[in-house]
């Protein structure tokens, strides 16, 4: 068994969260040893770009999240293509699948998520794929031929992104969504309908309120030739992409006795139930200010930010996560939509304001206390960040709520005192209000 020298900071996961932490640690601690372990062989790449890769617009080089030489420049040791199989929090060490043991001072679990797979027959056959990693994109790329027919199970962001890429490759796609509309978690009914209309124009078939029952093969082979839905109807196809969501990879943490809910439980310092173990990204449950509770937040920007906060704390600069919420922006099929927080109010205690213009749609959802709970902008989205900023900073908008959805809304539509105050915030770190005194934890 190989024993590597102890590393001060060990990061498991080489994507948004892991990189956010690593580069932040290096800012705060110039010399402390940092190692990143990942079961993927590639340097950190932008996961959302796998659809660009599949659409053949994008080289592997362009997908790199950080420039070549990034790890060397920051003196970060990478251990790629290796899986961590065991975590021992008592002796503060991990074991890799090749037997190597690494002991650590501070550990970050940024292990992400893996696709949820439905329990149906036929998923082991040739032609069934998931779509969350570059390897998934490569496998689909090598498999498809022009004129193929694909069934995408799941009409969320991943499903729509793979659909766009497949359409660009000349594949005829059917999307099967279990709920009554696609993109239902990030869009309201109005925009789901608009998105469906746009997608259908690209010769995509959208089936809602149904789900996959079985994947069928040609008799005597293991090649997919159709799927059967829950109403027994068959759809002929050569490939199936499962995109019904991801679940957090929490096994390492739970086996080590770290508290896990749906994701790994963390406090506002991104710290788990073990004082030297931190977690961020799709595997963790950071604080969501809209819901007022900790919950899964599987989106790239929040993973990076969580990693950054974890990094400060791991390096001894106590920094509090001010909370975030879901935020998404959609550009597929030439749409331009931004959305954040709750897009359809769960009960009638919320106030909904919306306006439709020739080329845009603006909607905000307010809580009774005047704070923004959600927003959806389509078409004219350039100023939507101003609204999201007010939501993120918990600004009471009751007195000027109508201005936020006005056609000519701009920064000066806010009350003068407020916009003056907000301009000043640019000059301070966003965490400054909550950053605590340096504690020298290490």
């Amino acid at each position, binding site marked *: 068994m190989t024993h590597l020298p102890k590393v001060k900071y060990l990061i498991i996961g080489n994507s948004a969260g892991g990189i956010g932490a690593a580069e932040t640690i290096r800012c705060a601690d110039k010399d402390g040893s940092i190692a990143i372990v990942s079961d993927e062989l590639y340097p950190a790449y932008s996961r959302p770009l796998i659809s660009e890769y599949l659409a053949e617009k994008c080289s592997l080089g362009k997908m790199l999240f950080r420039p070549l030489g990034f790890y060397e420049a920051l003196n970060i040791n990478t251990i790629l293509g290796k899986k961590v199989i065991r975590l021992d929090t008592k002796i503060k060490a991990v074991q890799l699948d090749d037997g190597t043991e690494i002991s650590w001072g501070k550990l970050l679990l940024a292990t992400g998520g893996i696709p949820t797979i439905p329990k149906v027959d036929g998923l082991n056959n040739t032609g069934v794929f998931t779509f969350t990693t570059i390897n998934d994109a490569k496998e689909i790329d090598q498999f498809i031929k022009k004129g193929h027919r694909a069934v995408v199970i799941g009409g969320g962001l991943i499903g729509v992104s793979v659909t766009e890429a497949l359409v660009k490759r000349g594949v005829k796609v059917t999307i099967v969504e279990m709920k009554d509309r696609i993109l239902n978690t990030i869009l309201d009914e109005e925009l789901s309908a608009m998105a469906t209309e746009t997608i259908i124009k690209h010769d995509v078939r959208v089936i809602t309120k149904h789900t996959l029952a079985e994947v069928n093969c040609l008799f005597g082979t293991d090649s997919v030739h159709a799927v059967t839905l829950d109403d027994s109807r068959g759809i002929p196809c050569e490939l199936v992409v499962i995109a019904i969501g991801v679940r957090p990879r929490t096994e390492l943490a739970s086996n080590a006795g770290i508290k896990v809910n749906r994701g790994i439980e963390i406090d506002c310092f991104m710290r788990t139930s073990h004082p030297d173990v931190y977690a961020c990204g799709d595997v963790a449950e950071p604080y969501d200010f809209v819901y007022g509770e900790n919950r899964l937040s599987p989106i790239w*920007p929040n993973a990076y930010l969580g990693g950054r906060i974890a990094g400060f704390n791991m390096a001894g600069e106590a920094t509090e996560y001010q909370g975030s919420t879901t935020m998404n922006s959609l550009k597929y099929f030439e749409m331009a939509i931004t959305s954040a927080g709750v897009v359809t109010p769960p009960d009638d205690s919320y106030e909904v304001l919306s306006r439709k213009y020739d080329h845009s749609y603006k909607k905000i959802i307010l809580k009774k206390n005047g704070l923004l709970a959600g927003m959806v902008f389509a078409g004219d989205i350039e100023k939507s*960040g101003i609204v999201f900023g007010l939501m993120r900073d918990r600004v009471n908008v009751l007195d000027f709520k109508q201005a936020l959805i006005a056609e000519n809304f701009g*920064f000066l539509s806010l009350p*003068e005192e407020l916009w003056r105050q*907000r*301009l000043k915030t640019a000059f301070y*770190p966003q965490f400054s209000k909550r950053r605590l005194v340096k504690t020298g934890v290490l």
Partner: protein
Amino acid sequence: MKRVLVNEPVCMGCHLCEVYCQLQHSKHEDMVKAFKREPSRPIARLRIEEKEPLFFPLGCQQCEEPYCVNACLTGAITKNSDTGVITTDEEKCIGCWTCILACPFGIIRQDLLRHKSIKCDLCQGLETPTCVANCPNEALTYTTIED
């Protein structure tokens, strides 16, 4: 770290800062040619915000802890650790508009033809940003801010 500051009462709202910004970020040296001959019309990276009687140009504030950099999906937007200037690598930008949703000032622009997000780069390579250099009433200044 140097930033563009606005002396509001002096701004006449003439929009010349926008025009010179467009020109600086176009391939032509002549504004008419830039408008007529470039397939993607040059986009001003700052905008005059108006609410009578107030108007002044608003551009990237080069935030200390930039939301756009933290949110960028591809690593296209970066902050230079020496100068503090935040720039977009257009090669890497895929026009996903996540930065637009992240920016609390609403100053990132969409280039819809090229599918790129466009922001103020403080005219990298020039000693003084062109909006400042060409402001007729010196409403814009390029000033060193203490950390």
